[in-house]
Every structure is written in structure tokens, then in C-alpha cells.
């Protein structure tokens, strides 16, 4: 059932964000610490667990992958509500601090991505790209042949 996939996604998100809040309180931080990241790890674990037991039905998969496919439209909506006026009128100190850290961080990405070997990426990665890009027919083929490898 499709709704079970959506509910699974919702449950993982809620639990993750809750744990992130708890972690924030435990560390004495006024922020959620890694809630979304924890939720992502929970969802990955749930996917592996379901696929091992053969419970990863097309419906469940579709319920989650629909929202993965809505990712880009949601990001476009997010871009459309940024406070761009404030960003454009911040003055030199804002511009220099932002540009400086951006250039430095891009440089660090270039350095770090050269550490270790560079693999071209597996089929699972490519398949994921087409789902998130909103192009693939969701839940096509036998329930994600790429899943079992983990």
C-alpha cells in the first residue's frame, strides 16, 4: 500500500527530528543536531530490513520515491522564498565573508575529493539519480535490485 511508504517516511522523519532535538538538549545546544541525518539513516535501515524480509512492496517503494521525486520542485519553491533582497543589500562585509568562505570551501572540496580513489559510482547511484530527478517510472522492475548489497 502506497500510504504505508509515506507513513514509513513520516515516521522516520518524526523519530529522527525528535532524536535530533534530544541530542541538542543533551549537548546544551539551542538547535536540532542532525535530526534529518538521523532520519535518513533510519530510512536506509528500514529499507534494508524490509528488503531482506521481502516486505519491500511496490506500493511502499512508490510512497517513498514519490517524495524523493518531489525533491527538486520543493527545492525550487524553497529558492523562491529566500530573502534574496537581504542577501543582495548586505554590503561589502557580508559579500566578502560569504564569497571568501565559499571559495575556500570549494577549494577544500576539490582537495578532499582527490583523497583516495575515485570510483565512477554504481548502478544503484545512477538509478537513485533518475528517481530523485523525477524521471524514472517509480518502482519499476523487481523491488530495487540494488538494495540487497548493503
Amino acid at each position, binding site marked *: 500500500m502506497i500510504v504505508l511508504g509515506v507513513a514509513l*517516511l513520516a515516521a522516520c*522523519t518524526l523519530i529522527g527530528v525528535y532524536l535530533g532535538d534530544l541530542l*541538542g538538549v543533551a549537548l546544551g545546544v539551542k*538547535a536540532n*543536531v542532525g535530526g*534529518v*541525518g538521523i*532520519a*535518513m539513516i533510519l*530510512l*536506509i535501515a528500514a529499507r534494508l530490513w524490509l528488503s531482506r524480509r521481502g516486505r519491500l512492496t511496490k506500493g511502499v*517503494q512508490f510512497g*517513498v*520515491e*514519490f*517524495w*524523493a521525486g518531489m*525533491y*527538486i*520542485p*520543493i*527545492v525550487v*519553491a524553497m*529558492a*523562491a*522564498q*529566500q*530573502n*534574496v533582497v*537581504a*542577501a543582495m543589500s548586505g554590503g561589502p562585509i*557580508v*559579500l*566578502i*565573508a*560569504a564569497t*571568501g*568562505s565559499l571559495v*575556500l*570551501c*570549494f577549494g*577544500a*572540496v576539490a582537495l*578532499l575529493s*582527490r583523497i583516495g580513489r*575515485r570510483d*565512477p*559510482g*554504481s548502478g*544503484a*547511484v*545512477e*538509478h*537513485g*539519480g533518475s*528517481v*530523485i*530527478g523525477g524521471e524514472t517510472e517509480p518502482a519499476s522492475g523487481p523491488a530495487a535490485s540494488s538494495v540487497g*548489497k*548493503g
Partner: protein
Amino acid sequence: MDQATGHAIWHGIEHVFVEQSLVAAFAVVGALILVSNFAAKRLTNGRVHGSAIAIVLGLVLAYVGGVYTGGKKGLADIPALAGIGLMGGAMLRDFAIVATAFEVDVVEARRAGLLGVLALALGTILPFIVGTLTAVAFGYHDAVSITTIGAGAITYIVGPVTGAAIGADSTVMALSIATGVTKAVMVMVGTPLVARLIGLDNPRSAMAYGGLMGTVSGVAGGLAATDPKLVPYGALTATFHTGLGCLVGPSILFLAVRALVG
């Protein structure tokens, strides 16, 4: 058709948009992406990703909306387009980011785990140093202001959280938030431009990128515009970035700055 009828029709449409705000947002964003994909194919011959154009277009519209309404939420401050605020707000954004984890190749993610941690550390320290040096160069001499502006260069959430914790004044806070927002916008626009240059084309480098750039909205936009397959890997590390920044900003980093400037 006389003016009164035209007015009535226009009002009717506006009424539907206000009442069906989220549904209207789906339609508007869909149309935006349709136009962007068309432009990507016809005007750039497919060299530029359609989603990159859509995101830049979104930012331009946010600017127009901000100037038009004088508000802080871009297009979402226009009543008929308020649904954009819900659709692109933190709730659905995080929901969709979590959903992308369904596509993660666990082997790849685990292999790059340590790299991600290293990136997170660098992604907190490097922007902070740049931000503090800029603050000093512009004549700030007290540890509180310097730290708050430096924290803003980490992300626009770390900035005000740190500032509030150590008691910065509101003009410095505004400066700190503006720095973070500017960085997020620049990450969204800049990433697809430099992606090839910095080797951002595989899950490993995406995890390093997420940790270094941090700002979830910037990373979310930047990777969507570059290559959707990289999204979950970058998001996985980026979501820990703000929490880490909020943790060390008012504590270790503030103490370090205070030790240096007295």
C-alpha cells in the same frame, strides 16, 4: 468585456489561489520547471541543467517578490502565492530530503564516512575564520561581534543562535544572518558552475561537499542543480553541519576568539 467583469474574474482567480494555496504552489512550480526545462533544451542545448535554471529563476522571483512586498519570504509573501512558503518550507523540504535517502547506496556512503566527518570539521572552521577576519578588517574589535559574524559565515542559523547565546546586538545579528543567507544563495548558484572543477561528480565528493558547504538550503539547491544522484550523499553530511556549528559556535569558537582578542 468591461472593466468590472475583468476585475471580478481576476478576483475569482486570486480567491482560488489563496484558498488552494498548496495546490496552487504545485501548479506554479510545475510551470516554472516546465519553462526552465524548455529553456535548458532550446537555449543552452542541454548544457545547463533545467533544475539549475529553475532554481535561479526561483531566486530571481524571490528578489522581485521581496522588493514588491517588502517582506522577508520572497514570492511567498504575495498572498496568492503563499503556498510556495508551505511547499518550500522546512517541513516539506526535510521530508523530501529524508525520502532521497531511500536511494542511497549504503556501500558508497559508508566508504566516505570518515571523509564526511573531516569535511564537517573543515566546513565549520574555515568559514568561521574567514568571517572573523572580515569582521576584524571592518573594524569590529569585541569578541562577541567577531564571533557572531564569523558564525554567520558558517550558516544563517548558526549565526543568530550563537549571537543570541553570547549576547550580540541586533545590528551584528542582522549582519550575521545576511552573511549566511548570501552564502546559501551563492552556493545554490555557484555549485553547478564549479562542479566539474572541484570534482563534484561522485558520492564521495558529494559527502565532502555537503559537510563543507553545510547550509542545508544551499546544499539542497546546489546539488539539485548539479546532479540529482548526488543529493542524498551531500544531504547526509550537510544536515549535521548546522547542529555542529550551533554546538561549537557559542562555546569553543567564542572562547578561542576571546582568548585572542581579549
